[in-house]
C-alpha cells in the first residue's frame, strides 16, 4: 500500500470491473471508508472493491452517476440524470447501501 492510486476498481457480482477515478468513487462515504488507508482493510491495499450484491447493469449506472456528480459538483441547478426506469428500485436500494 504505497501511494494511493488515482483509480480504483469496482467489481460487480457477475465479474465486470469498472475502473473509476478515486475521487468520483469517494462520493459514497461507504466506499471512501473502505478505501481509507488508516483503517487498513483489504480494499485499501488492493484498490479493488467487490460488490457481491451489485450486478453489472446496476453498478454501471452507479458509476455513471458518480461521474455525473463529479463533473457537475461545482455547478448549480443541474438537470437530473437520466437512467432507465427499470432500475429505479434497485438504485434506491443501492443508494441507501452506499449512502449516496
Amino acid at each position, binding site marked *: 500500500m504505497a501511494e494511493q492510486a488515482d483509480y480504483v476498481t469496482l467489481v460487480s457480482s457477475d465479474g465486470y470491473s469498472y475502473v473509476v477515478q478515486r475521487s468520483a468513487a469517494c462520493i459514497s462515504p461507504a466506499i471512501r471508508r473502505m478505501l481509507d488507508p488508516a483503517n487498513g482493510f483489504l480494499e485499501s491495499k488492493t484498490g479493488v472493491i467487490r460488490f457481491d450484491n451489485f450486478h453489472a447493469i446496476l453498478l454501471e449506472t452507479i458509476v455513471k452517476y458518480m461521474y455525473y456528480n463529479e463533473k457537475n459538483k461545482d455547478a448549480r441547478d443541474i438537470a437530473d440524470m437520466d437512467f432507465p*426506469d427499470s432500475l429505479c*428500485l*434497485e438504485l434506491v436500494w443501492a443508494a441507501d447501501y452506499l449512502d449516496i
Partner: protein
Amino acid sequence: MMATMSRRGGAKIRPPRRGLQGADVDFDTTWPILEGAFKEIHTKNASALSFEELYRNAYKIVLKKKGEELYNKVARFEEQWLGSTVRTEIVRTLTPPLTLTDGAGRTLATSSERRTAGEKFLKSLKHAWEDYQVCMGMLTDVLMYMDRVYCTDHRQPSIFAKSMGLFRDQILRTPVQPASTTLLDVLTRIVLDQIQMDRDGEAIDQFLIKSNVYMLEGLYESDLEVEDEKLYLRFEKVFLDQSANFYRDEGERMLKESDAGSYCRHAKKRIDEENDRCRSTLSESTSAKIQAVVEGELIRHKMKGLIEMENSGVAFMVDNDKFHELSLVFDLEARVDPRKSELTRAMQRLVTEMGTDINNAALTTSEATPQREAAGDDEDGKPAEEGAKQKLPAKPLSQQTVAALKWVEEILRLKDRFDKICTTSFSSDQTVSSAINRSMADVVNTFSRGSEYISLFIDDNMKRGIRDKTEAEIDSTLEKAIMVLRYLSDKDLFETYYKKHLCKRLLLKKSVSIDVEKQMISRMKIELGNSFTLKLEAMFKDMTLSEELSNGFRAHIAGVMDGAHNNSKPVDLSIRVLTSMTWPLEAFRGASGEDRDENSLGGRDITLYPPEIERLKSGFERFYAQKYSGRKLTWYNNMGDADLRARFPRSTRIHDVNCSTYAMLILLLFNDLPAGESLSLEEIEARTNIPRGDLARNLQSLAVAPKTRFLVKEPMSRDINSGDRFKFNDDFKPSFIKIKVGVVSAGNKVENDRERKETEKKNNDSRGFVIEAAVVRIMKQRKQLPHAQLLTETITQLSHQFKPDVNMIKKRIEGLIEREYLERMEDAPVPSYKYLA
C-alpha cells in the same frame, strides 16, 4: 443524494433481487463472522479483512431489524475486550513506585523512580487509548450502516461514542483493585506529580502527558457527550486546586525569603511557565484558568504584602529608582486588577509620605530661624532687618523665603520623580498617574502656606532667579511654578499673595524683566482663566499709564519752567497712579509691621514737605485733575524713593544717594540746619509729620547703619528712643559714588502668623462674597432648588477658584435668607429654597 429518477411512462420497474435485501441472512451465523473480524481489528490484523464483506454483513443484520441486537453485541464485545485485555495491560504498569505514592508513600520512592514508573504508566495508557481509537474508528466505519440507520432511528449514541464511554467506564473508572482508587485518579495523581517535577525543574515527557490529556479531553462524563462535561474538566479542577496550593505556599515562602524585586521576576516567570505548560503539556483551554490561579495566589493575595515588603517593597524601589522592578510590579498588578488599586494606594501613600516630609521640612526650616526675625520683625526689631539689609546681597533671603524656595523645589522634584516612574515603569498608566497627581494635589493643599510659598517662589525667581538665565530656562522655571500651581485648590488665596508680591516687585522695581512677568501672567491666564488674571493685568496697565503720566508731567513742567523763567532747579517726579481696588496696598502697611491705625494714612496726606517738594506735589495734583476730573489722589510716601545728589565734607565728589521719600525729607531738614546743631526725634517728627514707625526706621538707616551713617545720634545706641538727638555727621566718608540707603519695607517675606491670619480672614471674607454671588446666580436661574443640589452646584461653580467650605456656604445661604434674597420652601418634601426676585 441520489439523482432523482426521470419517470418514463409504461416502463417496467425491475424489482430488486432477493439476495440484495439480505433476507436470507441469519443473525446467529453472521455475528460470529463479525466478532472474529473485530478481534482481528483489535489485534491489528485488519489487512486480511474485506471491508465490503463486513459492511455487507452488518448491513444485512440491520436490514433484518436486528440492529439493536447487533448494537448490544458489539457493546458487550467491546466491554469485555476492554475489561480484560486492555485493563490488565495497563494495570500491570502500575509498579511499586506508583502504588506507594499514596499518603506517606511519597517519600518511599525518589522522584526519578516515580518519574520513570509514571512515564511507563502514561505510555501504556496512551497506547491503549490510541489503539482503541484507531480500532474503534475502523469498527465504526464497518458498522456505518448501523450507526446511520439504527442509532439515529433509536436515539442511541453512535457506536463510537458508546465505545468511548465503555473505555471510560472500563479503563478509567474501574478501581485498580477492589475498593481502591480508579485509574483516572491514578492518572491524575501521576500527571500532577509529573507537573510538580516540571515545576521543580526536572525534565519530563511533556508530549506523553499531552497525549493523555487529549484522551481526557476526548472523553465525557456521560454518553450524551455534553460539551462542558469533559472528563478533562475533572482533572483540570484537581490540577487547579493543587496549583493554587502550591503557589500559595510558594508565594508565602518567597515573601519571607526573598526581596520584592526577585519575587516579581519569579512570579512573572511562573506565569509564563504555566502558560507554556498549558500549551506543551496540558490543554490550551486551561491556560486562562491556571493563569487566574497563579495570578490569584502569587499576585492578588500577595500584592499587599509584596508592596509593603520592608527593604525591598515598592517604597524601597521608589527610593532607589528601581524602575525596572517597579514596572514588574506594575505588570503583575495590571494582570489581576485593571485599576491597580493596591499599587495605586501604595504610590499614593508614598507621595503623601514624602510630601508630608517636605511640608514638615519646610515648616522646620521656616521656624528654625524666625526666633531672630520674628522678634525683630514684629514690634521694633529693626536691628535684625538692618543687619540683613547691610549684608545685602550676600544673604538677601530670609529663612522663610529659603524655606519657600526649598519647598517648591522639593515638591517639583517629587513630582518629577513620580512622573518619571509613571512613564518609565507604569507605561504612563492613566489610573495610576492620575492617582499620584491627586495625592500630589493633596500634599500641596494640606500645606497651609502652599499658596504663599508658590507665590514667593515666583517672586524670588522674578527678582533674582532668572537674571542670568536663558529664555528656555526661564520658560521651564515658569512652567514649574505653574505646575505646582495646578495642584493648588485655593487659587484665590494664591491670587492674593501673588498680587501682593507682584505689587511690591513693580513698585519697588525689583522685577528683573517685565516681559517675564507678563509671560507669567499669560501663562496663568491659560491655566486659571481670564477672571483670575484680570486684576493682575490691571496692575500692569496702571504701570504703563503711570509711565505716560510721569512723562506727560515732566513735559508739562518743562513747559511751565520755560515760561516762568524760574531758576529753581526742576525736581523730577516719577509717579505711579494705582487703582486702589486692584492693588493690595495694605500689604505695605502690613509689612511695616506697625499699628498705624491712629495714623490716618487711608485718606489724607498729612506729611509735611519742604516747599520745593510741596510745589511739585500740588503741581502734579493739578496736572492730574486736568486729565482725569473727579479722581482723588492719595499719596503713599512710605512707598516712594528719592535720588539725591549730595556733597559730604570728607569727600570731594558729588554722591548719588538713593533713599526712601521719608529719608529724603529727613535729610532735607538737615540741609538748612546750621553746622553743629542737632534735632531731637520729636522735632523731626513735628517738622515732617512722618509716622513714628516709619520715622524711627528711616532714622535708624541714616544714623545707625555704618555704610549710610549720614547722621550722628545721641546717645549712640541701636534703638531709636524719644529724646534722642540727631545731627549731621561731618565725618561721614562714603566709599562709593552711589549710595543706597536701605529701604526698610522692601522685599517679599513670608508672613508671620498674625499676618497670615489676617490674610486668611480677608480671604475668607472675599470668599464669602464670591459664594453669595454664586448662590444668587444659581438661584436666579433656577428659581427654586433643593438644598443639596444648591450646595453641589455652588461647589462646582467655585471649584476652579477654591474649594468652598460647606459650612461657609450654609452660613451664606442663611445670610441671604435673612436679607430676603431667598426663602425656605415650607411645603417641599426636601429642604429647598426659593429665589425672591
